[in-house]
């Protein structure tokens, strides 16, 4: 039998290739030059290059490698978000003890690997690349979550993530098997027309397959009741990693979620729409309610992430171009808001002895306005108050929901954001409306970090290196805070972009 190599559109594939190559390069740099800190620089360059290539491809969508991948605006926009998050993560990790412990090279290689997985996932157009992408995304993250080997919590989060995550992907796989069986094809298009036949509409096999896939994806996007790993992992993982995966994972997963459900499973939409709508509502409720009593900022942001996932899912439930646009728009906004918040958390973890406890930001308004403002803005944005991208995003979502006759879900979103105010504003209150705790923080921080006992009394924050000079962290916070604000006032550019995305997905 003869082997004909598939013709490959290298231009289209270039981003993936770039990433794959850079993984190896960074890894090698770590192996052979562990002392010199090349990895971050290399990683940033790799990310920048990939981003450049992606931007270069904007506008001409193409199926790559016999339809395994599809590089279109959806894939590109999501990939760009992912790359941005990764870059921010690199900056936040510069002084990250976790990075030091697993070795800078390996750390960044794994990060890039995960990014590669996400980029693949965003482009995936058949089940195999879908599954591979998902795993390439997850497995490095399992490791990175546990990367802070000296903290039990980090290991715990890694293990939990691994177990539940694998359970999720097993479910996903099983669902894929059913869909493959039902349609006899692994390509999304094939599936679409395979299950589109009259005989298979509402066929239990297909529907169960959909259910299984839905669960798998819902898990990755932390939709309730498959969300429970989220708060724990977010809290346990090293903060930069949390920052990265909080948004990037969601983004990539939602990309394929959209592609798979709104394209491949569109024929069965009438059956799964209501189910997902209910899940979205439940997620909004649980996420917001769960965040209420939290003291740990990371945990709080974890729950809020759950709630936000619920909002975003709304954009998917209404199978429409506008829906996709709204979804991507909100994802981008969410990325900015979240990152601003996490950057501040990172900074405070290192400055005060309070780890990520809410006490860490008490009186921030007086001591560190440059940190206080971004956090404030991001909180307001996440709560969906005007003049932030969060407000516009919610506006957009609500509009598509009402248009898609899901007004009740829109009302649910609104009620959710009312509840959410209770905890977001609690943080703001801590920043501005209470006397400073800073001297407290300093008092501990000034203690030289020797011996394992100091972190114990300091709340296990061996990150509390007391560094004031964290230019890069502050920069990240300020930049993304500013973006949150600016896009809230002049959203039109982002708008036009996401409009193309919606159109690119190609559905009614």
């Amino acid at each position, binding site marked *: 039998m003869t082997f004909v190599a598939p013709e490959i559109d290298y231009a289209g594939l270039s981003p993936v290739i770039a990433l794959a190559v850079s993984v190896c390069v960074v890894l090698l740099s770590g192996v052979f030059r562990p002392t010199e800190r090349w990895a971050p620089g290399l990683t940033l360059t790799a990310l920048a290059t990939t981003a450049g290539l992606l931007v270069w491809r904007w506008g001409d969508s193409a199926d790559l490698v016999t339809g395994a991948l599809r590089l279109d605006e959806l894939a590109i926009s999501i990939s760009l978000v992912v790359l941005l998050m990764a870059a921010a993560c690199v900056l936040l990790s510069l002084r990250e003890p976790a990075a030091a412990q697993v070795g800078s090279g390996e750390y960044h290689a794994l990060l890039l690997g995960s990014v590669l997985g996400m980029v693949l996932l965003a482009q995936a157009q058949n*089940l*195999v690349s879908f*599954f*591979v992408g998902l*795993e390439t995304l997850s*497995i490095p993250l*399992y*490791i990175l979550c*546990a990367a802070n*080997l000296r903290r*039990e*919590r980090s*290991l*715990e*989060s*890694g*293990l*939990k993530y*691994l*177990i539940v995550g*694998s*359970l999720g992907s*097993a*479910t996903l*796989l*099983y669902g*894929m*098997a*059913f869909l*493959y*069986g039902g349609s*006899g*094809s*692994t390509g999304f298009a094939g599936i679409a027309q395979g299950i589109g036949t009259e005989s298979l509409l509402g066929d239990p096999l297909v529907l169960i397959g959909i259910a299984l896939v839905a669960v798998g994806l819902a898990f990755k996007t932390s939709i309730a009741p498959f969300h429970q790993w989220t*708060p*724990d*992992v977010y*809290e*346990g993982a090293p903060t930069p990693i949390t920052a990265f995966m909080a948004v990037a994972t969601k983004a990539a997963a939602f990309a394929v979620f959209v592609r798979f459900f709104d394209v491949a499973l569109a024929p069965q939409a009438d059956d799964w729409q209501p189910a997902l709508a209910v899940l979205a509502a439940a997620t909004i409720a649980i996420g917001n309610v769960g965040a209420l009593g*939290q003291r740990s900022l990371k*945990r709080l942001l974890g729950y809020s992430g759950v709630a936000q996932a619920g909002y975003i899912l709304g954009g998917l439930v209404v199978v429409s171009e506008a829906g996709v646009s709204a979804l991507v728009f909100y994802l981008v906004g969410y990325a900015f808001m979240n990152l601003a918040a996490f950057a501040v958390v990172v900074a405070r973890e290192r400055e005060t002895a309070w780890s990520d406890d809410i006490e860490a930001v008490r009186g921030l308004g007086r001591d560190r306005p440059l940190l206080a403002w971004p956090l404030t803005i991001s909180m307001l944005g996440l709560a969906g108050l005007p003049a932030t991208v969060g407000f516009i995003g919610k506006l957009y979502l609500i509009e598509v929901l009402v248009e898609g006759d899901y007004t009740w879900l829109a009302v649910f979103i609104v009620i959710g954001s009312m509840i959410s105010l209770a905890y977001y504003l609690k943080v703001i209150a801590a920043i501005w409306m209470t006397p400073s705790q800073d001297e407290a923080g300093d008092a501990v921080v000034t203690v030289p970090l020797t011996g394992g006992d100091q972190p114990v009394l300091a709340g296990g924050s061996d990150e509390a290196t007391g560094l004031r000079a964290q230019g890069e962290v502050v920069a990240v916070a300020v930049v993304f805070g500013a973006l949150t604000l600016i896009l809230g006032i002049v959203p039109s550019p982002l708008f036009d972009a996401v409009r193309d995305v919606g159109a690119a997905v190609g559905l009614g």
Partner: protein
Amino acid sequence: MSIEWYVVLSALLFATGAMGILIRRSPVVILLCLELMLNAGNLALIAFSRMVGNQEGQVFALVVMVIAACEVVVGLGLIVAIFRRRLPLDVDELRELRG
């Protein structure tokens, strides 16, 4: 033997694996149960690929084997790491994170 039999069997294996995850506390065994579930998936894939008469399912199954291997490697690595930290090898003991 009709394909149904294979698929139903795989369903049975899938359920068994899931149940195992729910009742076993040793992380190693939990990893084994994950293997069970993935294999159930594989069985289904192969059965279906036989049914529809194209080999994509088989290739998929092959890829899944690879990925399963990766999960195993990482999982075991994690277990070793935990063991190194003199932490109990019992998932129920690891619940610092909650609430």
